[in-house]
């Protein structure tokens, strides 16, 4: 029974967030039933919508895993946004340099570079925390701002397409794009609606499986959890907490960097500003709802993918509600699951124990 507490907790928090959001919808004079109905239809109502939902979910899996891995080591990586920006930059540079090569070559190089760029951007905050005592929460926030500024400069002054107006690079040669799921399945006789959903979705699932194996089935993962549970005890047991902190941040940053593979090589096929769109913060929500377990992260990423896709449809169909409405849901979920975690969880745990003993 107690094993079901995380699931029940997620559901209670989601229900509370939905109830609060519904109250807000009523307060501004709109109809919550219509709104949630449109949200659902926009997310799952037809093939193309499902494709978009899964495309968003792919990025959220990477961002959620990034937060979850760091969390197991007791670290709060709020820098997913900046790490994803750097990852996308790495992916974009590889694609711009190699896009006359066939896509598998470009994809392999892009995955490696995107992960390396994201990892490098997370390494410094990790090192500063481990060796200089500078809190990773603060340094990753700073790193986010620096990454955004760096990217703005690169896109406006350096990487902008020749004669281009918008701050975007040239479009990569079509042969280097990461194939969409629809293209891959078509020769097999499977027809799915065209959408930006691409092979990085498979990479996301593989990363979730790898993260699970790493965290729960390897000595490195044990060290990670040991330091997260009690750094001092881990140190006495012969583990170097500083080294674990740096490794956890590097792994976390690598995961966040892979957001760039999906967004840049899979969806946009060019470098551009703002492709992250708050993914680092959604990652926090995803990891919280998923209780830092890779399977939970995948499920929560699906939920948030549906919210974002459904939310943009909702804003399109229902003028009274803006796209920002979904951000309210995200904020409420993070607040309820994280800020108020001490409110719902003990109550559920008590109930579960009472059932077990009764």
């Amino acid at each position: 029974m107690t094993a079901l507490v995380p699931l029940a907790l997620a559901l209670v928090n989601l229900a509370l967030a939905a109830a609060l959001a519904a109250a807000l919808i009523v307060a501004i004079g709109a109809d919550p039933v219509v709104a949630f109905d449109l949200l659902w239809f926009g997310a799952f109502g037809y093939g193309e919508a499902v494709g978009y939902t899964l495309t968003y979910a792919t990025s959220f899996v990477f961002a959620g895993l990034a937060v979850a891995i760091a969390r197991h080591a007791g670290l709060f990586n709020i820098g997913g946004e900046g790490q994803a920006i750097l990852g996308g930059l790495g992916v974009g540079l590889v694609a711009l340099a190699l896009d006359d090569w066939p896509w598998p070559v470009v994809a392999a190089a892009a995955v490696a570079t995107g992960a390396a760029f994201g990892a490098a951007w997370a390494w410094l905050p990790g090192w500063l925390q481990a060796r200089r005592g500078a809190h990773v929460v603060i340094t990753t926030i700073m790193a986010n701002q620096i990454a955004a500024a760096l990217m703005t400069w690169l896109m406006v002054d350096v990487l902008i397409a020749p004669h281009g107006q918008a701050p975007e690079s040239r479009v990569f040669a079509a042969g280097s794009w990461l194939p969409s799921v629809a293209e891959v399945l078509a020769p097999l006789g499977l027809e799915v609606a065209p959408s930006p959903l691409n092979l990085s979705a498979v990479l996301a699932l593989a990363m979730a499986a790898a993260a699970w194996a790493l965290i729960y089935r390897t000595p490195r993962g044990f060290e990670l959890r040991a330091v997260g549970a009690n750094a001092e005890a881990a140190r006495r047991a012969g583990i170097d907490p500083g080294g674990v902190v740096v490794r956890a941040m590097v792994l976390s940053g690598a995961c966040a960097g892979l957001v760039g593979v999906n967004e840049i090589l899979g969806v946009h096929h060019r470098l551009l500003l703002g492709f992250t769109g708050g993914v680092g913060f959604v990652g926090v929500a995803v990891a919280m709802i998923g209780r830092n377990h890779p399977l939970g992260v995948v499920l929560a990423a699906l939920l948030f993918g549906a919210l974002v896709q459904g939310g943009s449809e909702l804003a399109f169909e229902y003028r009274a509600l803006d796209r920002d409405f979904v951000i309210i849901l995200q904020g409420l979920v993070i607040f309820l699951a994280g800020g108020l975690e001490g409110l719902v969880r003990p109550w559920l745990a008590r109930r579960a124990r009472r059932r077990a003993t009764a």
Partner: protein
Amino acid sequence: MHDLLTLDAGIALAAASLRLATPLVLAALGGLLAERAGIVDLGLEGKMLIATFAAAAVAAVTGDPWLGLLAAILAAQLWALAHGLASITVGGNQVVSGIALNILAVGVTGTLSVAWFDLGGRTPTLARDARLPVAPWPDPDAGGLAALIGGHSLLVYVALAAVPLIAWGLGRTRPGLRLRAVGENPDAVDAAGVSVVRVRYLALLLGGAMCGLAGAHLSIGQGAGFLRLMTAGSGYLAVAAVIFGRWKPGLTLVGCLVFAVADALQLRLQGTIPVPAPLIQALPYLVTVMVLAGLGGRIGQPSALGQAWRRGG
């Protein structure tokens, strides 16, 4: 670039820096109050943002900037109370609560601005008398010192006055002592018969009011209405200033001024120097990281910062 070296240009730059520093100073002092009371406050951005919207919305509807100012303070305090519920009453994660409230502010201001005004995320442009008054004296056109201190919006002066006031209040008064004590050793405060919970809530509410002023300055003082994502990261800059300032009001002011001068220079020099503007905007964050790296992150940090307090816990 030579025209920067004249006295008048220098004064113009200093005056611009003062205006840009105002929301940073107000918000940073608000964050400082919360953190000196032991509560991590990463929610400055959200409190400022909800205040910019509340101020502009109320000023637009009523035409009264004072009601707008009041609305800004109350809205930011509502956010502060939510943060208090999470960090003081429930003992939840203070970092997460602050960030959640920032995100919530983005969603709420975006949704309400569209639902109420339908201007694509703005509020109506405010007439002069729906905005906070500008100092009538000295006339900035008189040049010299008058150009530096004259002609600013009301809250510029409030921000400058708030620094010594809060430094004195924290350092020399009984409530200030209690506020610092709950941030250093809450058990001792509790043993002395003073409610830790009450002091921490009051610190958050006062800090919220400061963030409310910061937001109001942006939308009804300096600006003439609310724009989507109007705070644009200045709440995070204020957090950086508090850390840069080692949780002390005077040093925090220095941090804010350094950041503001960098920003004013960047605006002034756009296109005239080879360093691109976005990189200059990143400077305050780089400086903060370097300060953290060089001096260690925790010097000056209140001992009980981030720890939920329970009697006997």
